[in-house]
């Protein structure tokens, strides 16, 4: 019998992850969360579940961790809030679902899946996406649910850099261009 092929890969973001900032204890936390997410998805595949179920389950574990810039660990906007985006695509039907700029949806990937499966659209944004989430009974939270100390400090550092550069360059866009790459990453 042909060997059953199934597999999963996950990521928690790329960027200027500097070894000097990564203590062994911190690195272990990241690796343990990645391991939990990939094994959760793998177990579903091994049980014969769909790749869609595996992708959603793995991403929701990372959305619920404050370590990664998604869901619970989302970064702050310039105004001190959180705006989240997500998307999903089915390779068999080429159907897809996506949401952008949502503020009160606990699991953005779950909403993207609803858009894919229960709407005639591919992408919903902002208040419309929130309305759709409410109608579909998804878990909604206050925007402050996504607050974390570490990300708030990152926002303060970014705004300080931006203010310095904006004074010098007299232009926000130009100042933003000068920010180190890690401020430009999703």
């Amino acid at each position, binding site marked *: 019998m042909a060997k059953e092929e*199934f597999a999963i890969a996950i990521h928690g973001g790329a960027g200027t992850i500097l070894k000097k900032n990564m203590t062994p204890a911190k690195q272990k936390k990241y690796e343990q969360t990645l391991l939990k997410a990939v*094994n959760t998805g793998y177990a579903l595949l091994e049980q014969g579940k769909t790749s869609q179920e595996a*992708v959603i389950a793995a991403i929701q574990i990372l959305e619920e961790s404050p370590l990664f810039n998604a869901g619970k660990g989302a970064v702050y906007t*310039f105004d001190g809030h959180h705006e989240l985006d997500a*998307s999903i695509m089915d390779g068999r039907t080429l159907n897809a679902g996506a949401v952008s700029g949502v503020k009160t949806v606990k699991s953005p990937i779950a909403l993207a899946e609803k858009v894919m499966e229960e709407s005639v659209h591919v992408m919903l944004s902002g208040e419309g996406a929130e309305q759709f989430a409410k109608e579909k009974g998804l878990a909604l939270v206050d925007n402050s649910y996504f607050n974390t100390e570490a990300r708030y400090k990152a926002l303060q550092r970014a705004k300080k850099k931006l203010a310095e550069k904006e004074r010098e360059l007299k232009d926000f866009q130009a100042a933003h261009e000068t920010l180190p790459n890690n401020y430009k990453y999703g």
Partner: protein
Amino acid sequence: TVGAVALDKSGNLTAGTSTGGMTAKRWGRVGDAPIIGAGTYANNASCAVSATGHGEYFIRYHVAADICARMQYQGISLNAAANKVVNDVLVEAGGNGGVIAIDSQGNISMPFNSAGMYRASRSAGQAPYVAIFK
């Protein structure tokens, strides 16, 4: 940004991405994560991709769909297509970041041109692989 790509026992591929966006973003700025073809793409005829990095570049170079298209139309391997886009095209353009990708044979490729990428993978019957740096 976080993402996952998977191949199931029925041979179907799925890709998903979720993000909190960019620190200090203004004016409702949206990056590649929710843009199908840029940060997320899946096609059983080629591969499934989830991306992370400097969103504006991943949108302009439609990175996720480009990797799958190169496989489908040039007949090159997943690894060749993913590395060409991430380590040639994007580097040339000045776009930092990386992708995770899987094809319908279960091959996995996770190239990145930044200092690090949080990533993990697991294939049928094998132990999990977890890494952060090169």
